């Protein structure tokens, strides 16, 4: 089984410590939700795991082997950044060929949003549909892990409802790590939850702990 272990992650910007001594383990079947206040380093942590950002110190192990750039290992990881990543002139039909999604077409084409827009350029799609195309493309692309930075932002509630079964279906064979501010949605879709508090990653079991870490106010 392909395991992903992130350990001793440290990150500082301009002398300010953002992440310190982070430890996170993920295995196929896990859906890990990372919560935290704005600017606490959630996106940076995902980028460090993916390999596109170098921390002050980090240790990322994939199958027990240390790696600086996890994305360079074939089919190890996919990352969906919050601001999108695909060129405007690409279409979903192009992405099917690029990321070899042909074997998953029967599941993907059930979605009206993808079926009716598969030949439309991504740049011409609405923010929500564009996000959905990006998420589903990389969710279904071959990989052991998928990192999703704010997957539910830009999505209407009905699109979030349509996306969740796909995340759960893919988690049967992949490990999924996601961050988002819609904590109730994150809580319902994940089976492991952590909160980034004062640079440290704390595992949480109850929503009341989120209040304790200053992430929500239940009053």
């Amino acid at each position, binding site marked *: 089984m392909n395991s992903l272990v992130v350990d001793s992650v440290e990150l500082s910007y301009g002398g300010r410590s953002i992440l310190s001594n982070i430890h996170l383990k993920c295995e196929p079947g896990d859906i890990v939700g990372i919560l935290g206040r704005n600017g606490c380093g959630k996106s940076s942590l995902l980028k460090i795991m993916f390999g596109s950002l170098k921390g002050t110190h980090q240790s990322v192990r994939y199958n027990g082997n240390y790696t600086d750039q996890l*994305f*360079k*290992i074939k089919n190890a990881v*996919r990352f969906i*950044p919050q*601001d999108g*990543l695909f*060129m405007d*002139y690409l279409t979903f039909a192009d992405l099917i060929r*690029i990321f070899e999604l042909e074997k998953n077409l029967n599941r993907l084409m059930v979605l009206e949003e993808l079926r009716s827009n598969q030949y439309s350029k991504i740049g011409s799609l609405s923010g929500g549909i564009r996000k959905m195309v990006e998420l589903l493309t990389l969710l279904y692309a071959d990989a052991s892990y998928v990192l999703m930075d704010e997957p539910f932002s830009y999505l209407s509630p009905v699109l979030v409802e349509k996306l969740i079964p796909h995340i759960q279906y893919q988690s049967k064979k992949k490990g999924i790590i996601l961050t988002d501010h819609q904590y109730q949605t994150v809580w319902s879709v994940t089976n492991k939850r952590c909160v980034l508090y004062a640079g440290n990653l704390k595992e949480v079991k109850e929503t009341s702990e989120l209040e304790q870490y200053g992430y929500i106010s239940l009053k």
Partner: protein
Amino acid sequence: MAYLLLLIYRMKRWLISIKYLFRDCIVYNLLFTFFGIYLFVGHATNSYVYIFWIKIMGYLFTLITYYWYRKKHLYFYHNLGFNKRTVATMIIGVDLVLTSIIFTVLNVIVLP
């Protein structure tokens, strides 16, 4: 034939990346090549030093512009398994091949 098809399949990620990098970036670098052609036609072999520096400026301009304005697209290439250095190497490599072909043909046509 089967070996060639297998090789093409294994190079698929590279070919895809080069295709989109050409459209996004390399095509703009050709403007610097065309300026070099203009110099070459006017001054022939005396222009080599100028062409060399024009191409260096072109690479710097293209890579910096790409990094600043299309930074988020780097994640597309990262998801295909390529880091920044490999992407830069592909951009420069493909442009060097194109520039070499263009100037080899020009040498045959322009120089006696």
